[in-house]
């Protein structure tokens, strides 16, 4: 395999050192050392993240914002510092453009519900792409149904590339565009700069689903000129149950509030309630303090490694993996076949082996991949397949993982074919 491999630059990162930050990688499954290649579903968490949350609970745990006392002030400072870390990470113009949510799904639901409430009329449409995750389809269907608006779809070609030649035409009657940066089912990096530019030419705002992007690529909301952008903590080495909505100040001020509760209001009487300023207007109820602090630690971890170093290391491993997998007879990639247009995800099938069978035999060898439609049924329908096997990478994966994967696939083929 090595001989005809694409030339791979040496990584700036010491992957073996990184692996030691993730003790779960040392565990075994069915007697085999774990090979964790289900990172697009959720990543593992480094000790630094777990320690930050533990420290929070051991030293300053307290409800934020409304407290005069010392712990509450410490907690509030740590919590707001986390917001600052996130703003800095995606280069938001203002810290108050960062809204804390439960995850990407909630962030998209928030925008769909609030945008829909004031901006959608019967006959309007919402433009998504053919490679979206359900979380970027169903919220728009729900609000569309309520408001009489319908979905339009940017089509995808055989290679998994979005077809954007007709975009200007497609954008007619569209009130908002919602597309992912990187597809979770195929791994393709979508041309969101072109999509945003086209939408803005027509004065249409764009929501970017960056759930599969922020952990692999540099994401700069100002450079992209994204109007909204969402991602999940648990997919970027942070804790579960937490996520981010970025929104341009002007849009966030314009939208009505989402949920009601403490902190999102200024004054409450039974007759009338006035809402708080950004970002609190969109944060009802006691926030997930530990979640915010955990995500900030995860981002700190990523920043310390350097996102471009991560990108380079993952690209190198991706190239290695694609080259090795190409050698397996009857293996076909679903989506782009080269590493350059891809981030994190390799979706594939071998002959007519059912992905579920492949996944089970890999699992028996201690290799965790995901099988099925990856919450992107329309993508599977597009390719007329029941699903794929998906191996997805994170910064702690090494060539041993890939070698184990390819050997595992070969073994599965021997058993199943």
């Amino acid at each position: 395999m090595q001989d005809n491999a694409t030339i791979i630059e040496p990584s700036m990162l010491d992957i073996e050192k990184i692996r030691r930050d993730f003790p779960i990688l040392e565990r075994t499954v069915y007697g085999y050392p774990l090979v964790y290649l289900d990172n697009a579903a959720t990543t593992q968490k480094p000790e630094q993240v777990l320690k930050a949350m533990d420290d929070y609970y051991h030293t300053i745990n307290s409800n934020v914002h409304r407290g005069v006392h010392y712990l509450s002030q410490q907690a509030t400072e740590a919590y707001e510092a986390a917001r600052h870390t996130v703003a800095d990470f995606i280069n938001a113009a203002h810290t108050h453009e960062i809204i804390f949510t439960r995850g990407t799904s909630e962030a998209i639901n928030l925008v769909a519900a609030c945008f829909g409430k004031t901006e959608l009329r019967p006959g309007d449409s919402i433009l998504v792409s053919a490679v979206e995750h359900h979380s970027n389809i169903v919220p728009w269907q729900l609000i569309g149904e309520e408001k009489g608006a319908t979905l339009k779809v940017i089509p995808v070609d055989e290679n998994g590339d979005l077809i954007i030649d007709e975009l200007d035409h497609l954008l007619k009657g569209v009130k908002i565009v919602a597309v992912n940066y990187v597809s979770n089912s195929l791994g393709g990096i979508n041309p969101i700069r072109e999509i945003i530019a086209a939408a803005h030419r027509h004065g249409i705002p764009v929501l970017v689903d960056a759930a599969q992007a922020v952990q692999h690529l540099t994401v700069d909301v100002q450079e992209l000129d994204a109007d909204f952008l969402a991602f999940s903590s648990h997919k970027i080495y942070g804790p579960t149950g937490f996520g981010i909505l970025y929104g341009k100040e002007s849009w966030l001020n314009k939208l009505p509030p989402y949920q009601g509760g403490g902190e999102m209001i200024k004054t409450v009487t039974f007759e009338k309630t006035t809402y708080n300023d950004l970002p609190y207007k969109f944060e009802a109820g006691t926030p997930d303090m530990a979640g915010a602090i955990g995500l900030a630690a995860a981002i700190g971890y990523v920043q310390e490694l350097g996102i471009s170093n991560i990108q380079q290391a993952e690209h190198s491993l991706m190239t290695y993996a694609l080259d090795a997998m190409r050698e397996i007879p009857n293996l076909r990639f679903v989506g782009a076949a080269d590493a350059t247009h891809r981030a994190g995800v390799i979706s594939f099938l071998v002959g007519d082996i059912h992905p579920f069978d492949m996944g089970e035999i890999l699992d028996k060898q201690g290799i965790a991949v995901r099988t099925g439609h990856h919450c992107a049924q329309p993508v599977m329908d597009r390719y007329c397949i029941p699903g794929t096997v998906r191996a997805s990478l994170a910064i702690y994966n090494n060539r041993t993982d890939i070698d184990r994967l390819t050997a595992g696939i070969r073994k599965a083929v021997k058993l199943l074919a």
Partner: protein
Amino acid sequence: MTIKEQQDEIIADFDFLGNWDDKYEYIIQLGKELPLIDAQYKKDENLIKGCQSRVWLHVDYREGKLFFTAESDAVITKGLISLLIKVLSDHTPKEITDAQITFIDTIGLSSHLSPTRSNGLLSMVKQIKMYAVAYQSKSLQS
């Protein structure tokens, strides 16, 4: 053979198979052999809800006994189905409702029966039991 005896036989067969590869090879072999369900029965009404693999199940009732044929698009599931049918087919509704399905656990494939897996096998067991209950009450009435 009773349902219990059928299961014991399967368990004994599997005892001969040493490691997991051999067990899977055997199940996969069975999956490849399973007589395909009659094409007319591979229809949506016979499709059992299951997220990862699809399972079709058809039932016949003859002379007080139930006979099953089934199919799945995933071969391991299909192999397990073939064992399940061997165990449960050609029995009375009462025998089926009373039966404890233990062999899947014992041969080490219990994860296929995990409610969290949603792969169709558990749903299939439930479906078979439901048929049995239905036919049992029917036969009691008549």
